[in-house]
């Protein structure tokens, strides 16, 4: 529209003339170079989970473990322990994750001011990467809009063991269709800008809690295998 096309055309023409010596077709050139780094981890499932927990704790995240049966009680215990009352939940969060006895607001279009009033948030996740201690949100209905896990100071994230991969490339192989919105969270908000001293909690949530739900591991392993085949 208002964009003067002159600059676009000039820049692209300069680039084309600068790279005119390149003759290999793009696709072939892209496929040609070696990618000999580690793609698949070697750890057994239990060790993979243990590594994730270790990494998360290094980042000062709190981690507890549960089974599908004990999950609601584990969530209730975390909420009670936080000392907070007002929580927000993504629209798709399972109803039995919203522990009774707390003030819940479900995000069906809450304003920023309303979310800012909340003291905590509970979400699911898309997956987690053990090697770097990273939780991945693709912001689906159980993970919530981006702002939901940002403004409240306290974030409880529920992870199923089957969602845990060991390496970063394993995560990418789980998303053949690149998602439009992604947030990776590796520990609570932090900075080291003053004398390289790591300080927890700048603008994002200062407290990150994770409940790791065991037991679905066997079933989902076979699913994952199936997908790969």
């Amino acid at each position: 529209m208002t964009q003067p096309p002159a600059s676009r055309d000039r820049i692209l023409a300069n680039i084309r003339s600068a790279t005119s010596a390149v003759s290999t077709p793009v696709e072939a050139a892209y496929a040609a170079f070696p990618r000999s780094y580690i793609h698949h981890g070697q750890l057994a499932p239990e060790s993979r989970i243990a590594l994730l927990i270790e990494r998360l704790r290094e980042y000062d995240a709190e981690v507890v473990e549960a089974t599908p049966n004990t999950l609601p009680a584990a969530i209730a215990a975390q909420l009670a322990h936080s000392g907070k009352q007002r929580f927000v939940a993504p629209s798709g969060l399972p109803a039995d994750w919203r522990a009774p006895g707390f003030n819940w607001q479900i995000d069906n279009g809450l304003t920023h001011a309303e979310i800012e009033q909340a003291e905590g948030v509970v979400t699911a996740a898309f997956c987690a990467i053990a090697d770097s201690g990273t939780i991945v949100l693709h912001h689906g209905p159980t993970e919530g809009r981006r702002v939901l896990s940002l403004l409240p100071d306290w974030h409880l994230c529920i992870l199923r063991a089957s969602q845990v991969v060991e390496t970063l490339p394993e995560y990418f192989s789980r998303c053949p269709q690149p998602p439009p919105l992604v947030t990776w969270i590796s520990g609570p908000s932090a900075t080291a800008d003053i004398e390289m001293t790591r300080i927890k909690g700048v603008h994002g949530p200062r407290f990150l809690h994770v409940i790791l739900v065991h037991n679905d591991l066997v079933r989902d392993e076979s699913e994952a295998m199936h997908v790969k085949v």
Partner: protein
Amino acid sequence: MSLHPQLDPTLAPPFPQAALPMLRNPQLRKNVAHATDVIQAKRAKLVAEKTDWQQLRSAASDLRAHALENLGFYLEQFESRCTAAGGQVHWASDAAEARQIILDLLKQENATEVIKIKTMTSAEIQLNPFLESAGVAVFETDLAELIIQLGEDEPSHIVAPALHVNRSQVREIFARRMGLPKNEAEALTDDPEALTAAARTYLRHKFLTVPTAISGANFLIAETGSVAVVESEGNGRMCLTLPRTMITLAGIEKVLPRFQDLEVMLQVLARSATGERMNPYTSFWTGVTPGDGPQHFHVVLLDNQRSAILARPNERQTLKCIRCGACMNTCPVYRQTGGHAYGSVYPGPIGAILTPQLMQMQHAQSLPYASSLCGACYEVCPVKINIPEVLIDLRAQVVDQERDQPARFFDLMYIGMKAADFIFARPWRFHASQRLARIGLRLFTRRDGWIHSLPSLGAKWTQTRDLRGLPKQTFREWYAARPTNSTSSPSLDPEEMPGAPSMHRHSGAWVGDRKSQPGNPSGETRPSVLSSSDPEPKPGAPSMHRHSGAWVGDRKSQSDKSKKEAQ
């Protein structure tokens, strides 16, 4: 702390001049040394635990080189995918055009305030002063950038722009500039936690009320039209999520072919930049998503000489840079001077090659010389930019420029080089000059066999190091006079020029910095970079390793030899 350092390469003094006040500022040097030591130690540990580090480096390097070779294709793909997802793509040939595009977009929004995620590209185009003079208040939201902005300082590092400032200096800036009530300002301590909390409070209201934000981009994904931003504090997520309008300024070189390529880039970036396995927050977004985040999204693609750099085969690799800052943390020059001496928002080794090129070799010609060519930057570079190679290439260009200037006839260095050219052209001239030098230097050689001070240009060497006196005999003289084969006549074959074998005997002493090593009478010191405990070299090691290995090896074999001789 230096107030208002000049980071405009068109105005900044040459590096040696700009470095002097930094070298004379012990507080600054202490702050820089501490910060770079901490990052380097963390980086070394995390790189060592990565058994496939060299494979990741190779893949990262190949990916970046491939993206640059096909830059036109990938940029057009990015443009069409981003546009299809609801973003608007703008193209800016130079800094002035980029500034104007951004200001026009802000005017469309009637913006009087804007919040910013840290972006060095915006510093490159000097965006903040431009917007301020047009009546738009700019709020930097990254803690380090906030320290810089409130302190009216300039960034000295591309990842940690305020690493030259210590906690008590930060306290002073915050107490003075945050508009805190008097009692709160006085109660503010220099505890980093308290200072961080002060920044959180100061910016919270801005995040929730300012409707327009500006970001940079760590990567543009051609396949999807997405943008990636890596950060630590959550200020990025705030700016990417809360405002109505987001403007992303990105250099055209930032594009990657596919989403999956991040599996390489994001394994090397945080480890190299901050010594973390992963930075706390990484965000990707694609155009506009209804109900989530800004509903107006613009990308400004900035050329500003990048396409010209692309056209130079040797220098093209400069554009592979992913701005991790590892090269400056390891650089023996940067670690002494800090970033401001480079007179550019891009300091350190990468700045020394990038800045002169961004300036079309019209300014900052002293920067290619702001390096000892030790190669440490190349070793740590996660995308394998051969910085020493580019430095040498740029030095050649600077010399070519000087060749056309009449002032060269009055330049001692030029006259010296011309004289050397003349002398080296004929063996007999070289031979004669050796004899002359031996006689001449005898005047300056003390009884201990060392030259402690020389006049004129020679003083530049002897101010900081001693020079070994010339031996009584050259290799060729010794060869001609050796008793075993008395029939052979002295040859003038250039292959047998004095030099190669006998030079090794001196090299250790020549390289060694005797004056700074009083406890080392032999003068045998390894340059500090080579003795760093960095776990590299590893398989696939860059060629500089071979050079440095040869140096160290030579001296070692020399000391072995002297041991034998002593026995």
